[in-house]
């Protein structure tokens, strides 16, 4: 076989094949119902039978309905875990190798030039102060920042967070923090069916504020947010992520990260994931977020 012919054969084999639609038993039954219904309707007209007409109408309707309500394409859950885990492992390896010890901070859009995104700021060392929005905007396109040494990465849950916004029909920047529970519940349970239940609780912390030398006022600040997610589709992934020190409880798995992005956008303030806890089987995930006062 000549070289040209070989190349041509290789190109032919790479041509896109026509997509074969899988005939599932549900679809088969639906089409059968539809056909049977239409036949009954035809016979009802020929024999002028109202019973046959009702049977035909019912079968046609339910056949068409089952075809209409089962047309969405779904993928198996195991595929989800196997495609996401390697990227989280790689991110964890990079941060471990580079010896990043600071607490990752989810930056709200005001720290970035794009007002619809969030990024994670990871300081190299602990006890490093968060730079001003202007300082971060100057180096926004870089992954590794200098003065102070830090890293600016895209959160693992940014895409999920954008999907949540897309489904909600508005940006989280326009949603008040108090309404976040209501919106996330609808999105997680009803719209996207990510989890069986989601509870968001704001925990007030006491902050002593000195008014004068002898007077101090105890002020309540709603800066800790507890999010409890029950039976999420990411439960196996969360179990895997527990082994990754830089992911679980700091950057967060995609679901915790997406919630962190939403809180950062809704509050307009930097957010950290304080800790994440999950049950042995991973069915209940509890994440604690802290809003940083600037």
């Amino acid at each position: 076989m000549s070289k040209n012919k070989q190349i041509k054969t290789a190109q032919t084999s790479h041509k896109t094949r026509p997509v074969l639609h899988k005939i599932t038993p549900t679809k088969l039954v639906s089409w059968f119902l539809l056909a049977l219904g239409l036949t009954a309707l035809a016979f009802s007209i020929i024999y002028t039978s109202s019973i046959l007409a009702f049977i035909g109408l019912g079968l046609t309707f339910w056949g068409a309905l089952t075809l209409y309500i089962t047309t969405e394409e779904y993928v198996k859950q195991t595929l989800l875990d196997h495609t996401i885990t390697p990227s989280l492992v790689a991110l964890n390896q990079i941060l471990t190798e580079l010896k990043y010890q600071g607490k990752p901070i989810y930056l709200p859009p005001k720290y970035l030039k794009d007002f619809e995104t969030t990024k994670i700021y990871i300081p190299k060392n602990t006890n490093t102060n968060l730079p001003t929005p202007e300082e971060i905007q100057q180096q926004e396109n870089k992954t590794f920042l200098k003065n102070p040494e830090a890293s600016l990465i895209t959160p693992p849950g940014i895409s999920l967070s954008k999907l949540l916004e897309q489904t909600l029909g508005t940006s989280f920047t326009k949603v008040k923090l108090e309404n976040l529970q209501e919106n996330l519940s609808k999105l997680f349970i009803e719209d996207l069916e990510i989890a069986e239940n989601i509870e968001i609780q704001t925990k007030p912390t006491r902050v002593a504020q000195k008014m004068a030398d002898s007077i101090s006022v105890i002020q309540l600040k709603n800066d800790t947010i507890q999010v409890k997610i029950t039976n999420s589709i990411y439960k196996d992934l969360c179990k895997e992520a527990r082994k990754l020190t830089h992911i679980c409880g700091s950057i967060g798995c995609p679901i915790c990260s997406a919630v962190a992005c939403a809180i950062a956008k809704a509050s307009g303030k930097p957010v950290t994931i304080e800790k994440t806890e999950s049950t042995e089987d991973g069915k209940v995930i509890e994440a604690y977020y802290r809003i940083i006062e600037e």
Partner: protein
Amino acid sequence: MNFPLSFWDISLWLAVTAIILLITSELISPYYGKTNILINKKRLNHTALAMGILFLITVAIRIYGIITSP
């Protein structure tokens, strides 16, 4: 060779179907776990509403008929 169902037969059929679908779409669990038949709840809800509206249209036609009849 005529279609054997009258307008009111269709109206009754629409009412029964709409009730069944509306109850199903409201009672269906938002989280239905592992199952072989995957139902798009939104589409089911839309169909139920459409059937309900169609039935209401037949009712409106009936009312209009009663009002305008001498």
